[in-house]
């Protein structure tokens, strides 16, 4: 999302076209990140290589993360669960209301910041620390559960839900995240409050229908894209909520419990690929004079599309290309592992190792959105007091402003590099741990992991490159 305006502006220039101005009039981002300096890039790349080396050489010889014991800590009362659900529904309602009734200036309306900053970035961060808290606040799930509870009280016999189709797996979630990324990174009206409200309502509606047909839990675990997305990140957390009970576990040990059915590998590739495209689309390689996007756009204009549509097509191609690239790299790693010892199909290997991509995906999210969260997140202070942008001041904070100096460019760089390196190390650890289970002979396990090592180094280098050279 960062630099979307800048991107659009550059493209319009590159194609020497007068695009409709209003559509590009505002982005949420006031301050963007400076590219990571070369020396830091070199250090980070070096540390990645060393971490990988030592990890393979000296890390644990026996699986340690596969079957850990969780400790029960606390069970929340039912009332708290109801309260959280009600809060979720209320927050959703206010956000939608702001979208429809508020000013259509993106930065002064509550909904763009809620969707792109609080929901999309804030929840993954919170989840990492506190476990899957979104489950409790999820408005559509809370609504469905409320209705189900009322129906059971009313004594009406609710028909048993259909069995959730196994072949469908997490494909709906992968599609959801891809579509969301498309809206965020490609669609010209991405910041339009009314359109965001319509899309949010539409999404909630689809979830309600899905939950009605297939049952609340099976649907939420597989097809509710955002629930699935947040739950994946929560697997890295040391806190684990099961029903209303809180357990603690070693960090990362949740990831091996991932049931990787159909659609799970594509989902993770979409997660990593779309954020990569966000990085790529900020750089001059993509948008600069003579960059790829203006060139592509011109080609589609020559085919008779309007400048705006041609721009969207160019960006769509870029988005899909990055998802394809990430899928390809992972696939190569899997094929490599397959060559070490026959006995497992590539599909099975691909699914058994895909949980190692979760920390990589989270690292990408942190590296790309940390500053957005820190800066634009502050906008919530005045947006909650004046959600419609009409001058009201509910909590006396309507005049608050964003302090862009809470963390400087140096701080952001270190967070980005630290996240990528740590994510890389965690991914490697998970893959190594799984290899020890999959391959009976430790020798095979180690050999297979040279391939995963290559995959991880490729992803981390890609991430670093996107934050440095590509962003010049």
């Amino acid at each position: 999302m960062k630099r979307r305006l800048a991107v659009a502006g550059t493209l319009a220039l590159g194609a020497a076209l007068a695009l409709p101005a209003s559509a590009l009039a505002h982005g949420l981002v006031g301050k963007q990140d400076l590219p990571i300096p070369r020396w830091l890039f070199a250090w980070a790349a070096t540390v990645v290589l060393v971490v990988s080396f030592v990890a393979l050489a000296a890390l644990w010889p026996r699986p340690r993360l596969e079957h850990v014991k969780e400790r029960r800590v606390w069970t929340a009362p039912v009332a708290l669960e109801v309260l959280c659900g009600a809060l979720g529904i209320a927050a959703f309602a206010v956000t939608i209301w702001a979208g429809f009734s508020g000013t259509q200036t993106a930065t002064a309306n509550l909904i763009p910041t809620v969707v792109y900053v609080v929901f999309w970035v804030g929840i993954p961060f919170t989840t990492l620390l506190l476990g899957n808290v979104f489950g409790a606040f999820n408005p559509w799930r809370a609504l469905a559960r409320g209705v189900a509870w009322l129906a059971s009280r009313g004594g009406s016999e609710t028909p048993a839900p259909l069995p959730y189709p196994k072949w469908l797996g997490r494909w709906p979630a992968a599609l959801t995240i891809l579509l969301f990324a498309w809206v965020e990174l490609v669609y010209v009206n991405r910041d339009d409050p009314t359109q965001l409200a319509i899309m949010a309502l539409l999404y909630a509606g689809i979830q309600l229908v899905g939950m009605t047909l297939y049952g609340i839990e099976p649907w939420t675990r597989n097809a509710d894209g955002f629930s699935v997305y947040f739950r994946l990140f929560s697997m890295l957390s040391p806190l684990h909520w099961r029903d209303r009970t809180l357990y603690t576990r070693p960090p990362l040990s949740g990831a091996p419990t991932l049931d990787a059915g159909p659609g799970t590998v594509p989902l993770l590739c979409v997660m990593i690929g779309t954020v990569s495209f966000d990085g790529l689309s900020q750089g001059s390689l993509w948008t600069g004079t003579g960059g790829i996007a203006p060139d592509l756009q011109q080609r589609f204009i020559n085919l008779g599309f309007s400048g705006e549509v041609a721009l969207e097509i160019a960006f769509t191609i870029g988005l899909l290309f990055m998802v394809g690239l990430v899928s390809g790299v992972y696939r190569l790693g899997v094929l490599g592992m397959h060559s070490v010892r026959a006995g497992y199909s590539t599909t099975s290997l691909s699914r058994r190792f895909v949980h190692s991509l979760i920390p990589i995906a989270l690292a990408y999210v942190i590296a790309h959105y940390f500053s957005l969260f820190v800066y634009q997140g502050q906008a919530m202070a005045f947006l909650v007091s004046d959600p419609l942008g009409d001058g009201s001041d509910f909590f006396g904070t309507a005049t608050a402003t964003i302090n862009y100096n809470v963390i400087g460019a140096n701080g952001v760089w270190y967070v980005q590099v630290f996240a990528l390196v740590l994510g890389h190390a965690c991914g490697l650890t998970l893959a190594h741990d799984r290899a020890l289970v999959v391959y009976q002979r430790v020798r095979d396990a180690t050999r297979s992991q040279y391939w995963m090592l290559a995959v991880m180094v490729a992803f981390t280098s890609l991430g670093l490159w996107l934050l440095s050279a590509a962003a010049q």
Partner: protein
Amino acid sequence: MAERTGLSTVQRLALIAGAVVVLVVGYLLLQGGSDNGSKNSSATTSTATQPAAQGTTTAEDGTSSTTAKPAPPPVPTVRVVDAKPAGGIKKLDFNKGDQIRFRVVSDTADEIHVHGYDLMKDVPAGGSVTFSFKGSIDGRFVVELENHGQQIAELDVAP
């Protein structure tokens, strides 16, 4: 446990030696990188003296100072033709703490918006405005022709 990893002691030592080698190479890379990678802005970062009103409209917010004017350093200029930046989006490089100054000459009437710092000034058709403010926030900022939704410059403030 050593055997279960499938690595002998010699192999382990070799790996750790390899790690050291990589670290050393990385250190050398670092040396090479920091020579040319750290500071790149100089032309635009000279003294903070302030020439008086340069364009046809004067600065109206409190950012312009009233010091006497010695030889004014060159002020980078962004030219706007047909609501677009002539020659592509202009790069403006400064360091944090510098007095940031640049001029926008435009044939199109609009409001110029410096994001992040949130400074806005109107420019009449065929006129110009000069921005001058303390570079108190590092980062990369869009300078935009507000009502056209067109970026005209990219302001980099290095830490």
